[in-house]
């Protein structure tokens, strides 16, 4: 690549002075690495703990240019760290290991590593690592520039997230971090390089939350099976976005969904416990192994963190928080999740919210809702969707506090990287208060911020408000908390069964008011996103959810994963939103809320039918969450 002097910002003699963070639990290797890096004239900070590394990175994103990390570490898996860093901070990460197995290397690459070095590491190799930083900067810059030229990204999305689009200003050189900012993201949506044709390879398209939301919506609309880049592009109607951009994003989304669904399966069990929102939620985290994440979460960081707009580096690249997700109802922009979701206006408990997310009826694509929540605004910046993955989807539990108080659980919209909606990961944290959809969504814990910000979160966000509402309404929902995660995909889908019969996809429990709300809407974002799930119950529309606009995630369903996310954010229209509440109609929901269990089982069945691995768990509680948002 052309070695370009990074003239921007400072005249520093890059790569001299490049700030590297080295993480390795082996002191011998760490010291060696540090010395080698110093010899290359980099500025080195070392730590033997991944957790500490993350903490340092989170405190100040601008402190480092590059991260080098060992794969095998006792406190956290190197790949997880990799994903988190990529999502949250969008920094280049280099993996290091004594084991050079092709499979491991592949794993590193798929999780987003810029490079994979073998121990013992040699100085020659370290001399070139700065190229990764340059590469990123360049593209970021380009994107930013582009954004300026473009209009603000779909301002329409307007939803909450309020991602500041505004300022695209070329933050530029701020790069990375800025990218995470919603604002920037928005701008970059189209990332093409209009401006700067020269030499640069195609600039990276920044998939802001808004953009992602649209993407998911489009996918859901088309149906995951039928979603082809060309059509998606048309539906999205975004300037300067090419078919290629969409195609590669679609590919990542699919991978993400796949991943989530695997995780989901594990999590499926979670559901029940969800009850106590946060706590369970947190618990969930540990279940999965996300443990790490939970650790974050525990402190509430999780939610926040999760939602922190991580750009799903892993799979999808950056997810900008979908400010616009459209979740209208969603409580505060995007932040639905993290509990903050406040009231999206839905009356129902958070759960409802969540659910509403799913039912998407509301037109706003489910995604809208979600990203909103994802936006984590609650968390703070709605930056990209939080990791939904992170959500402690702990297998069992957390998933939506099904019991009625779904909302309680924050719907941590963590969406797995991949797409936010990853099936379990979506922790919609809608209103923090309530529904913590955790569990299920979280499942993947992985940071995959669920839908790439957008969708999941928003949905969740909406869910929250709803969930609260739902909570009330549903009494039964409890169990539902569901395993939204479960099997991620299926969950969401399952839900739909209830409601809508039409839903095929999981649609998360959205439909079921009861069920879904239960977990606070755990909307399984995952599910929603889940391919299988397409749950977004979008289809819910009307039925059962009556007022809730169910996003028919399911309709989306099947969309492999993509749809799920697309589930229209449960438009949290105030009540209509997901809250599938107690839809007494029972149709979809097996007699509505009361029978959350029914719902859950219905969902489960769906899943089963679907063949999702989601185990039984899913159905029950998880579904509630599912509301794929």
């Amino acid at each position, binding site marked *: 690549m052309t070695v370009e002097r990074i003239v921007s910002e400072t005249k520093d003699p890059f790569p001299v002075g490049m700030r590297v963070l080295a993480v390795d639990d*082996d*002191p011998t*290797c760490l010291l060696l690495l540090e*010395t080698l890096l110093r010899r290359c004239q980099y500025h080195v900070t070392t730590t033997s703990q991944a957790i500490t590394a993350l903490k340092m990175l989170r405190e100040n994103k601008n402190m480092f240019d590059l991260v080098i990390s060992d794969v095998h570490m006792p406190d956290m898996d190197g790949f997880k760290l990799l994903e988190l860093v990529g999502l949250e901070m969008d920094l280049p990460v280099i993996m290091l*290991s004594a084991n050079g197995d092709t499979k491991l290397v592949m794993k590193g690459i798929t999780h987003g590593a810029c490079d994979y070095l073998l121990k*013992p590491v040699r100085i020659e190799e370290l001399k070139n690592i700065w190229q990764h930083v340059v590469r990123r900067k360049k593209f970021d810059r380009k994107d930013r520039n582009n954004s300026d030229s473009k209009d603000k990204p779909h301002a329409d999305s307007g939803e909450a997230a309020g991602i500041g689009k505004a300022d695209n200003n070329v933050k530029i050189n701020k790069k990375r971090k800025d990218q995470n900012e919603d604002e920037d993201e928005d701008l970059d949506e189209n990332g093409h390089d209009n401006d700067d044709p020269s030499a640069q390879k195609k600039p990276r398209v920044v998939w802001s939350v808004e953009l992602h939301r649209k993407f998911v919506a489009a996918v859901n609309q088309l149906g995951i099976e039928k979603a082809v880049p060309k059509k998606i592009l048309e539906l999205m109607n975004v300037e300067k976005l090419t078919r290629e951009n969409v195609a590669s994003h679609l590919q990542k989304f699919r991978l993400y969904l796949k991943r989530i669904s695997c995780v989901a399966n594990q999590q499926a069990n979670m559901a029940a416990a969800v009850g106590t929102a946060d706590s369970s939620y947190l618990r969930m985290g540990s279940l999965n192994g996300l443990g790490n994440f939970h650790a974050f979460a525990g402190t509430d960081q999780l939610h926040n963190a999760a939602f922190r707009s991580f750009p799903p580096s892993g799979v999808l690249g950056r997810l900008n928080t979908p400010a616009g997700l459209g979740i209208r109802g969603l409580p505060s922009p995007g932040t639905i999740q993290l509990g903050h979701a406040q009231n999206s206006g839905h009356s129902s408990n958070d759960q409802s919210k969540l659910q509403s997310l799913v039912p998407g009826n509301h037109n706003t694509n489910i995604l809208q809702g979600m990203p909103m929540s994802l936006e984590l605004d609650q968390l703070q910046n709605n930056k990209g969707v939080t990791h939904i993955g992170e959500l402690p989807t702990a297998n069992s539990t957390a998933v939506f506090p099904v019991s009625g108080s779904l909302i309680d659980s924050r719907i941590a919209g963590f969406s797995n990287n991949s797409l936010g909606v990853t099936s379990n990961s979506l922790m919609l944290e809608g209103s923090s208060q309530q529904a913590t959809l955790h569990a299920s969504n979280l499942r993947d814990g992985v940071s995959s911020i669920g839908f790439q910000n957008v969708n999941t979160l928003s949905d969740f966000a909406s869910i929250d408000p709803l969930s609260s509402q739902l909570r009330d309404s549903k009494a039964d929902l409890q169990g539902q908390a569901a395993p939204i995660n479960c099997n991620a995909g299926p969950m969401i889908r399952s839900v739909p069964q209830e409601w809508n019969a039409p839903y095929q996809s999981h649609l998360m429990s959205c439909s079921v008011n009861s069920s879904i709300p239960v977990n606070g809407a755990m909307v399984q974002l995952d599910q929603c996103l889940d391919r299988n799930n397409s749950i977004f119950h979008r289809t819910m529309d009307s039925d059962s959810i009556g007022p809730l606009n169910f996003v028919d995630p399911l309709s989306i369903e099947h969309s492999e994963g993509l749809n799920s996310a697309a589930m229209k954010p449960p438009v949290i229209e105030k009540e209509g939103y997901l809250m599938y509440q107690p839809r007494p109609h029972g149709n979809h929901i097996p007699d509505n809320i009361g029978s959350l269990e029914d719902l859950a089982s219905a969902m489960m069945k769906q899943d089963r039918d679907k063949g999702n691995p989601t185990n039984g768990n899913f159905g029950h509680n998880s579904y509630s969450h599912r509301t794929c948002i």
Partner: protein
Amino acid sequence: MDLVQLQRQLVEYRTSLYHEGFLDAQFTQLQELQDENNPDFVVEVVSLFFEDSERLLNELTTALEQQSVDFKRVDAHVHQLKGSSSSIGAQRVQKVCIAFRNYCEEKNVEGCLKCLQQVKHEYSLVKTKLESMFQLEQQILSAGGSIPM
């Protein structure tokens, strides 16, 4: 012994270590990293290696003494030992670790125990040799000389 003799002795000793496979090219790299700004680098790194390895060997012993051996754990430790020994160039130790890992994968307790013995042996050998080498270096330095590369 005079300085020149000491220096010669050091060089010979070091060369023999390479020949016998105790050390490999990685160790040379370590030496190259040592400079005026970092005069004790090699000793530092090697000391860290000793400390860490001893800890790992103890853990391994404990792990393999269990009724039901947790091979994942054993493997993790061996993996780490392999990584650190390769980082300083302790070639023979590294080689035994490779065989050790294979036994772990096969969940072969006997094989693992045998490897553990071997690795302990190789480790103590390389430790003794390096320590002797450092001593020689120290003597040279105290005699006012410099360490020949």
